């Protein structure tokens, strides 16, 4: 059965089962039509020129898990930022795990998408925000057609979420190959603040494909601090679509740490709709083997006097492939904006590849836009210098790579995340040195 046939027959099964009379039901049908019309993205599509999804979609995925899996906290503790007190929304094979999660409805809502979709109390929010921002491309549409579960986060006006919120999607893959499609909605009210950590983690060697969609709305003066930790198994692929809409004076900071997975595609779209917005898109990629990481970012300036700042630092070893496709679009009305984009790459091996494609489309005439892209190797002189001081070659390389990525880590606001990322990098580079630089 081809992927598309599988999708259509699975959709019929889903339709009979869920929310036949809800608002979302109508969206599902439209989205499926859209997916059918567009088909899977191909290399000849400009957006997927450097990332082939062929190997990802030629597997026979099961779209719904057969049974609910039980997992103990001790099995997954290491994947959580467990040193800090946090709200947690945890899914196992796309199914919510109540005993691993900690949700709240006290002064703000951290809960499941399924309960938000089925609860009248949230109907207005759902109708105002759900699927209003997500792209209409084929894979986002596929998610909209099938999405049943994910995190629902709503922070009302003038409220500060007191603890960070962790969204973790585990896959156990007792099924042969499995596809999950999480759907998150984050609505942050005027002058409200939230910190969110998102992770997708496979606990199996079986193939897992995650096609995830997250919509983030930041109202006036809101502050959203969002971290994506991507350090999955080599049998797990992730296609992520995250869209952010910002109103005046809001600040959204999004960090993506890509350290593993077979194929990772990050579609990150920001749209600034009010004046004095601030957007930060930072990323560190360190991959090896045959891993593939694609960052496709779009920052759309539709209002004057805003700022956007992108910094992606990437290291590729072996035959790893990277794509950085960063686009900044400045509307005619968006005068006096400041858009900055920086993409620095180190190719450790001769066989590694980076495809870098910065794009600026500027229709306003009084703006500051800059972009820089570099591709280089580790500095041999610096390596010898460090060795001559007693630092082994492996550690010297690690230290140089860490120093290279460090400017991005400096903007991480949660110390526990910074130290977690530091440890992940040390593990990844197989060195045992403290990078407390």
């Amino acid at each position, binding site marked *: 059965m081809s992927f598309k046939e599988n999708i259509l027959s699975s959709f019929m099964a889903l339709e009979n089962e869920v929310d036949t009379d809800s608002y979302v039901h109508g969206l599902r049908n439209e989205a499926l039509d859209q997916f059918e019309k567009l088909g899977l993205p191909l290399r000849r599509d400009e957006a997927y020129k450097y990332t082939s999804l062929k190997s990802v979609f030629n597997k026979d995925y099961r779209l719904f898990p057969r049974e609910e899996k039980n997992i103990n906290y001790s099995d997954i503790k290491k994947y959580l930022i467990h040193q800090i007190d946090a709200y947690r929304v945890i899914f196992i094979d796309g199914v919510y795990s109540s005993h691993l999660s900690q949700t709240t409805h006290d002064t703000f809502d951290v809960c499941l998408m399924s309960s938000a979709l089925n609860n009248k109390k949230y109907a207005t929010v759902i109708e105002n925000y759900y699927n209003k921002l997500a792209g209409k491309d084929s894979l986002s549409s596929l998610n909209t057609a099938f999405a049943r579960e994910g995190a629902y986060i709503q922070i009302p006006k003038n409220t500060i979420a007191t603890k960070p919120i962790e969204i973790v999607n585990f896959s156990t893959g007792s099924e042969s190959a499995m596809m999950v499609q999480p759907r998150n909605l984050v609505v942050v009210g005027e002058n409200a603040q939230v910190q969110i950590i998102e992770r997708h983690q496979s606990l199996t060697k079986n193939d897992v494909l995650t096609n995830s969609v997250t919509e983030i709305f930041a109202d006036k003066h809101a502050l959203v601090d969002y971290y994506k930790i991507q350090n999955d198994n080599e049998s797990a692929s992730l296609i992520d679509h995250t869209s952010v809409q910002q109103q005046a004076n809001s600040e959204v900071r999004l960090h993506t740490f890509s350290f593993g997975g077979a194929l990772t595609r990050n579609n990150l779209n920001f749209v600034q709709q009010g004046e004095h917005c601030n957007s930060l898109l930072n990323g560190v990629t360190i991959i090896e083997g045959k891993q593939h990481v694609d960052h496709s970012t779009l920052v759309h300036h539709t209002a004057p006097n805003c700022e956007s700042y992108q910094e992606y630092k990437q290291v590729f070893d072996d035959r790893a492939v990277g794509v950085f496709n960063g686009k900044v679009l400045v509307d005619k009305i968006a005068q006096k904006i400041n858009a900055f984009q920086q993409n620095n790459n180190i190719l450790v091996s001769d066989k590694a590849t980076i495809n870098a494609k910065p794009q600026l489309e500027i229709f306003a005439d009084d703006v500051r836009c800059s972009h820089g892209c570099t591709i280089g190797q580790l*500095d041999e002189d610096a390596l*010898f210098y460090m*060795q*001559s*001081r*007693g630092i*082994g*070659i492996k550690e010297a390389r690690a230290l140089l790579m860490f*120093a290279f990525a460090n400017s991005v880590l400096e903007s991480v606001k949660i110390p526990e995340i910074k130290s977690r990322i530091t440890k992940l990098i040390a593990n990844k580079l197989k060195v045992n040195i*403290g990078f407390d630089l």
Partner: protein
Amino acid sequence: MLHVKNVHATIDGKEILKGINLEVKPGEVHAIMGPNGSGKSTLANVIAGREEYEMTDGEIIMSDENIADLDPEERAHRGIFLSFQYPVEIPGVSVTNFMKAAINETRKAQGKDEMPAKDMLKLIREKSELLEIDRKFLSRSLNEGFSGGEKKRNEIFQMAMLEPKLSILDETDSGLDIDALRIVANGVNKLRSKDNATIVITHYQRLLDYIVPDFVHVLYKGRIVKSGGKELAHELEKRGYDWIKEEVEA
């Protein structure tokens, strides 16, 4: 301590060192002088283990062990230190953390535990005072944006931190004004002991007024063509290198 025996070395197939012999004993200071392109820096790099230089013949014995096949870090762990003619800038790594990594990696290789943070701080304070280094300077990225003098002072600071058995100072005086030269030389002299040794590589006699050598060797066309006491340096200062060249050619 160090015994360089008949060392030949090439870079990109070109022979630079053509049979160097040199013996350095604990407590001694040796100066290696010579005109440009005579192979002085090559010798320093070959002893420190730089890969680009291929040692085609000879032995380098350090404390009874042939180190010619060891990696640069292994040589450092055995007490060899090279002060670079052109110290490398390493953005993103502070001086302090670089030293922490260097000291702890060396201790690890020697089977010791990491140095406790408190001791490390004390050591840093003590050695930075010796080199008259401002503490603020230590949190800056290694060598990045440092002046010539700061870079060289930083090299000797690293040497003071690592307490090597054998220090090779490659053109440490180049780019130094007279005050910086005095501070650097003063640092080197304070670190001298009967158990360690120093090789000073220099163009000019000037540095040797401050760091007084026991032996002076003249390197020319990849060979040591003349050796003597400190008076040889004065003679070179007065007469230049031409008479040596003439002696060799004749």
